């Protein structure tokens, strides 16, 4: 069981990386407009 002393903080560190990814994404404005990309995907095939 003593191995938990090492593994639990390690697991928390891994999930911390995901938290950082979320913080970056929200700062970059990824959650600002949740509707328009759904429309835009439809004309991506035509051009751009």
């Amino acid at each position: 069981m003593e191995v938990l002393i090492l593994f639990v903080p390690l697991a928390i560190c891994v999930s911390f990386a995901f938290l950082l990814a979320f913080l970056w994404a929200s700062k970059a404005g990824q959650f600002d407009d949740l509707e328009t990309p759904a429309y835009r995907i439809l004309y991506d095939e035509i051009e751009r």
Partner: protein
Amino acid sequence: MQKDKTTAPAVIRTGPATCKHCHDTLLPSQEAFCCEACKMVYTILQDQNLGTYYALRNELCEDVERFPRPQIPNAVEDEGTLVQGTERFYIQGVHCTACLWLIEQLPVFIPTLSSAHMDMSSHVLTLHFKEATPLNAITQQLQIWGYGATWIAESGQEIHLAQQERHHMLWRIGVAAFCSGNLMILSLAAYTGIEGTLSRYFEMLSLFLALPVLTFSAWPFYQKGVLSALRSRTFSTDTPIALSLFFGSLGSVYEIFWGSHQLYFDSLSMLVFLLLFSRYLLLRTQQRIWSQSYPQFETRHTSKVAKKTDTGIEKVNVDQLHVGDHIRVFRGQTFVADGKIILGHSRVDQALLTGEPYPLKVAPGDWVYRGTQNQQNALDIEITALGQNTRLGKILETARHFSAQKSRWIRTAETAARILALGIVIMSALIFFNFWDQPTVALSRFLALSIIACPCGLALATPLIFHLSLKAALNRGIFVRHPNVLENLPTLKTLVFDKTGTLTRGNFDVLWTSPGFFDSEVSKAVLALESCSQHPVAASLVRYIQAQQPQAVQDVRGFHILPAGGIAGEIQDANGKFQLWKIQPVAYAGETNTDTLSQTKLQPELHLHVLKVSVDGVAELQAQIRLGDALIPNIKPVIAQLKDTGYKLYLLSGDSKAACYQVANHLGIEREHVYYGQTPEDKAQFLQTHDAIMIGDGINDLEALSCAKVGISVQGGLEENVCQSDIYLAEQGVLQLPEVLALAKQTRQLLLITLGFALLYNLSTIMAAVAGYITPLSAAILMPISAFAVIAIAVGGHHRWKS
């Protein structure tokens, strides 16, 4: 750019031929387009290689006709205003991928633009400029395409701040989610009976994970619940939450180091996450409404005006004007100040102030007011009042005063929070009184009490229900400025209607023409004559004839205005002979003539003008035309339904007695509830003394709408309305009234049910805590159950109502 014609699927349309642009049914005489405007838009798009628009629209927009055409505001000729950097516009009339695609092609048309980005959820278009561009170049381009564009005159800093607020909230939510998830796993070990050094180690890890949640994420609760509550000496739902979080975290820290290791970190942080998330949802919905509600008055304020100086005419900003200055106001421009005309004759549209649909003739010596529009010729005016001192300024000031008062309405949630706080205080006192000789027991029970008493259901229910209701309203084109309004709307049982523009269309329309009007050459002659006149009646007649039977306009020889009213002119007939045609008004009393109306099976509407058409030398009349302000179609069953539901109906109007009684009779409003000849001040007076819901057309009823307990506006520009009234019915006006009332009733019911449940739960758990039954494990089970029960009631209730 890839050519799109091959990718566009062939659209198979059966039935009559339709216009290539707008899909209106074509007349046999027309080939591909229903009107010149559609042809022009089509040509412009094809010229710029933007035919993709049609491919996208035909493929993806299910039903173009389903969407109402937007009410496009009149273009204001303020070519002085330049915009640069980043600017935002509110766009009306966008509904599908094709619209989105087209609008984002704006830089193709306006080379000074570097990029265009449209947000479909808030309908806000963000433009980045390479260099300064005239404002009207953008609005006009969008208007050609059929979209209404309003410049959001707001500084870049404000946009940035709102964005930052959202981002910070997301950060708090992210941190709370991360920490509470891990905390729950860690505390599972404690609940399953872990002991020894490993348990101590997990406790320290829990403390480490709980700190960011209870400080950084929970900061808004401390700020609102304690700091602002102390400052304003009021009590909010956040106060018990803040206290619970504060005592809970302090108590748990004490338990780690000196106590019996009873930790509540997992329950507390999960609670913070749920509360923050429900509030974020509400904030998003509200920002969606607010982003569409910036006052256009401010936009006009920044435009340039032509000031007369000794040397000539000079363009200056409005804020550089002084009382006594002389300014020139051109056709189509809005007056920026109150003043007296010193030169020129024109017509002024005063609908904003008086609600009078008919433009007023003005001459030197007459008064004009800020916010009204010059419709015909340039006028020189001497300024007598500016800004706040103008009539409009005073009305807006009153409106602001009253809306500030309304935000202090009693909230059901606050009442519940007060009851709960009282319960906590009494029970805490009881604990310490009972166990005064056993401080450790007293402390641990007080800790359990302060955590389990946290009104999570209470605090979760309100934002969640409001979010769902506001969103449901928004999807139906109903803008609710503040969710509190929905909560309090069902307590009011009196409806006060304005007439012009609310129950009636508020326009001058052709209501009736004598039989055979379109068969003979009469309609051609009327069209030709009226096209020469600048009178508003003429404009609506021309519009009517062109809509019914589009045709080329004939030439008129010797057009003149008759001294007794009316117009005359010579028109060539089929044989090439000139005949003198006359169109004259007939004296008409609105109420008396109902016999012809029943024959034509029309609703008894208001006939403000009756015109007779005659040919010189021919005895009998060629035709008769009636114009007036028609009732809104299908309004009668709506009003009847409201009356049956038990609402008391009133009619307040500035119009004449006859006109008001006619509408009231038709709709079944009692005569003693009809108040005619009311000035805006009278209306405001009436609403201050009655607890009522006012339904008005938003522009001229601003004062009355803001004095009423709830003001609902139905027409006019979006910007003014969302700012000054509580609810704005954007799509179908007064016909949506039953829908709003039902939504409000539903919201209030759900609120009462969930709050009742939450209160019952909290009070019973408080009792359990006093008796010593609450442990960290039971708190960790009970608190999420209550939270999810509340969510289930709110979401389920809304779902049931929708279906």
